[in-house]
Each structure stands twice: as structure tokens, then as C-alpha cells.
């Protein structure tokens, strides 16, 4: 089992009440949201339409003193931050992450701004190991870009995160490019988290909508595949050559199949995208990282390892727990599924390359108190 330093690239932090977020809204938007009498507040969070039959959270992650999983720092400290040699955790929000699924673009932009301030003040202030995603209301790309730049001087706001898709266009479409210009300019990777499902989001599955949470969860990679192919085909990495992309919670063993197909199709259809200068798999190898959870489970673990190795993913995979969600992957478990010689890279060094951190500084041994 791996027991060295760890960077966790997908930790969902949550709020308990609307009031936590409302206090960060402007006065006008506070007025809009509240004061509706018995109707209560305007909903701040779009809902996923697929209920998980046994709940979305690990039952043991509900804080003892009440509240939502991921909402209590003390519980997170005990269960996650202190449970391993964890050196950094990248926070990725809970249901609020579907902010780009709101129909109202102006409200979404304001909510995203408030969420980011909430994350800085309520979370980053509690523990220097915590880092946060910058959420954006991508319905208004120029406003989203301004929100990214607003955090340029806050180093622990480490990435720009997209989840829901307000335009029904792959994320490589030029309508999103102002966000990527800001990400590149401020040195932040763009993260795409699987599971888009908010109100204004198109179906996240190809070929038609599905009926159960089982189906939608199995098919989460489809939307991520759309975005990855879109990023490369639209030449996002030619236009923004320093941009890094991380794909979160969509698995990884499908990547060789997709990229082999993409390379083959590119050879015949290059005329359509002559701005590309490399094979799609080469853009992937230079610009894209992928989180581990949920790692595909094959009857023989060697089958998955061989697939990952075929696309050089031992250098692109970054560990993610997905705490406190029901399908979180434990370090101990993951380290039994992947070759020992990959552990140092997947649990530590690849994430340092992604976020521009110095692995030697992050991995410096902890100083222990000396008792006589």
C-alpha cells in the first residue's frame, strides 16, 4: 500500500444553508433571492434529475453535529485530511458546481462569484493544504473570464472548473474561449468535471436521454469525450499553447480507444481542421491530465493497467478521492490496482506538474514534535 505524500484532486466541499452563500451576494441579488415570504428563497442550486437510490453521499460522512457531508471542516479533517499523508486537496464544490446549469445567466454569474468568495473565506482560511476551484457562470463567457482574473492573485484558487454546459456546444467551441484566454493568462488549468445535469444543460448522454441514475452514471464519460474531442478539434491548444486541461471523474480506461480513433479519423479528415499541427493524441499527451476516480475495474487488473500504459497515462493520471461521495476511491484500494512504480507519480508528482507545484517542497517530510 502507498503511504507517501498525496495530492487529492477532487474533494467536494458543501454548504449547509442558503444563508452561507446569500451573504456573499450583492445587495440587489440578496433582495432578489430572499423576501419571498412563505415561498422561501429563490433556489440557489440546480438539481440533478436522477436520484441515487441510496443517496449521493457516503453515510459515514454526515457530520456528527448535523449538516451536509463535506460541509464541516472538522469531519473532513478527521476522515480525509488527517487520514493519510495528504499535502494538498483541491476543492470542487457540491451541487453548487452546477451553476452553469441555471437558466438565468446573470444570476449564475453572481452565484459563481459568491461561491468563490465563500470558498476562499470559509475554506481556504482553515487549512493551508486546501485549494479551491474557481467556478464560473459560463453562460456569460466574458464575465466568467473576469471572474477568473479576479482570483489571479489568490494562488490557492488553482483551476477554472466547468461542469454544466449552457450552450449545447462542446467546450472547445469558440464561445467559451474568453474563459480559456483568462485561464492561460493567469496560469490556471481548466477542469471539466463529469456529471453535468442541471436545468439548462443538454442531455449529457449521446443518442438520447436515459431513465435511471445507473445509466447516466455509466455514461458520464460520453460528455467528457465530447468536450475533449471538441477542445482538440477546435484548436484550443494551438490558440492557447500553455493551457492545461484536467478531466475529473469520468474514468480513464476509455481514453486509448477514443484517442486511437481520433488519430485515425484525423488522418482522413484533416482538411476540415487544418489548424491542427499534431495528432490528437499528441495534444492530449502535452496538455491533458485525468483524475483516477472512478478507476475502471476489470476482472484482471492487468487489463486496465495495460490500457493506461498504452496511452502513457501513468504520467497523466492524478489521484482523486471524490470525498464524500458514495463512489469515492480510497488510497489503499487504488494503490492495489495500479503498479507500485506508478504510485509516486499518480499520488503526488503528476498533480504537481498539472498545477505547477514543486513536488520536492510539497513532499518534504513533516516535522514531528520531539518528546524527551
Amino acid at each position, binding site marked *: 500500500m502507498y503511504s507517501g505524500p498525496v495530492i487529492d484532486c477532487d474533494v467536494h466541499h458543501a454548504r449547509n444553508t442558503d444563508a452561507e452563500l446569500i451573504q456573499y451576494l450583492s445587495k440587489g441579488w440578496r433582495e432578489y433571492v430572499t423576501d419571498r415570504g412563505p415561498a422561501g428563497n429563490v433556489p440557489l442550486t440546480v438539481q440533478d434529475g436522477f436520484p441515487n437510490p441510496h443517496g449521493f453521499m457516503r453515510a459515514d460522512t454526515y457530520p456528527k453535529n448535523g449538516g451536509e457531508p463535506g460541509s464541516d471542516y472538522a469531519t473532513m479533517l478527521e476522515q480525509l485530511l488527517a487520514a493519510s499523508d495528504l499535502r494538498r486537496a483541491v476543492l470542487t464544490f457540491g451541487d453548487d458546481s452546477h451553476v452553469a446549469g441555471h437558466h438565468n445567466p446573470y444570476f449564475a454569474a453572481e452565484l459563481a462569484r459568491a461561491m468563490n468568495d465563500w470558498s476562499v473565506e470559509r475554506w481556504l482560511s482553515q487549512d493551508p493544504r486546501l485549494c479551491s476551484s474557481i467556478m464560473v457562470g459560463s453562460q456569460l463567457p466574458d464575465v466568467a473570464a473576469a471572474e477568473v482574473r479576479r482570483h489571479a492573485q489568490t494562488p490557492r484558487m488553482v483551476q477554472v472548473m466547468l461542469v454544466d454546459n449552457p450552450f449545447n456546444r462542446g467546450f472547445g467551441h*469558440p464561445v467559451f474561449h474568453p474563459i480559456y484566454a483568462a485561464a492561460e493568462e493567469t496560469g490556471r488549468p481548466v477542469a471539466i468535471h463529469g456529471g453535468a445535469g442541471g436545468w439548462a444543460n443538454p442531455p449529457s448522454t449521446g443518442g438520447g436521454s436515459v431513465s435511471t441514475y445507473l445509466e447516466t452514471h455509466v455514461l458520464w464519460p460520453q460528455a467528457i469525450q465530447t468536450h475533449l474531442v471538441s477542445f482538440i478539434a477546435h484548436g*484550443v491548444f494551438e*490558440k492557447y499553447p500553455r493551457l492545461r486541461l484536467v478531466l475529473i471523474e469520468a474514468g480513464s480506461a476509455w481514453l486509448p480507444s477514443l484517442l486511437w480513433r481520433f488519430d485515425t479519423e484525423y488522418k482522413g479528415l*484533416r*482538411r476540415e481542421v*487544418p489548424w491542427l499541427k499534431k495528432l490528437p493524441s499528441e495534444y492530449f499527451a502535452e496538455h491533458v491530465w485525468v483524475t483516477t476516480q472512478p478507476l475502471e475495474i476489470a476482472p484482471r487488473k492487468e487489463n486496465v493497467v495495460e490500457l493506461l500504459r498504452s496511452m502513457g497515462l501513468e504520467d497523466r493520471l492524478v489521484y482523486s478521492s471524490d470525498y464524500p461521495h458514495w463512489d469515492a476511491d480510497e488510497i489503499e484500494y487504488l494503490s492495489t490496482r495500479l503498479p507500485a512504480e506508478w504510485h509516486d507519480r499518480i499520488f503526488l508528482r503528476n498533480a504537481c506538474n498539472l498545477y505547477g507545484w514543486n513536488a520536492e517542497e510539497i513532499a518534504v517530510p513533516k516535522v514531528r514534535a520531539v518528546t524527551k
Partner: protein
Amino acid sequence: MTVDVGPVGDFEDRRFRIVQAGALEVGVLRWSDRFFAVHNRCPHQKGPVCLGVVSGRLGGSAPGSMEVDEETPVLSCPWHGWEFDLTRGRALWDESYAVKTVPVRVEQGRVLLEVGRGQSAG
């Protein structure tokens, strides 16, 4: 071996003409006042590559731009669309992949191919 494949006037601009040159089936292309000749067999799946589309090389200096280099004719195989730069025979996406080129010249208004050793039916 030199093979005379006809007068220049028989070759329509920007159209391949398939000729037999010894054991080789060769596509000969007139591109304005230049001539190109390649073995009519794609290195991918042995398709009749010279039946494909010919155009100037398309490029893009930025995403969304579509520019053409008229100095560089490009042949797209009708099977799968793989593209080859006819000035060197090389695939556009991999220099190590190529259609077999055949030396071609014009003398006294005739189009001549040079086939022989190293120019087998392959």
C-alpha cells in the same frame, strides 16, 4: 526505362490521368505547368489513391482559418481520405508515410515517366 505517356495537351489541369508504365499503374497530374506522378496505390489499404480529390494544401494559421497553398498539390485517397503532399509523396500527418512517387519530366511537348529499377509494381 523511360515511358512516353502522351503530349502535354492531353493532360487536363488539376486532373489525374491513370497510365500504365511498364508493370506500374501510375497517376499523372498536371498542376498548371508542373507535372507530378505517383503509383496509383495508397500505402494504407492499397486503394486507388489517384482517383481521389486533388487540391492546394489547406492550412490554418489559427483555429477557424482556412488557407490554401497553391504551390503544394495534395492528393486525398478516395478510401479513408488520407492526404499526401505530391511534391514529396509524404503524408501530411506523418513524414514517414508516403505514396510512391515516379520521376516525371516534359521533353519536346511529351510527358515522360522514368520507371525501372526501384519502380516495381510493389
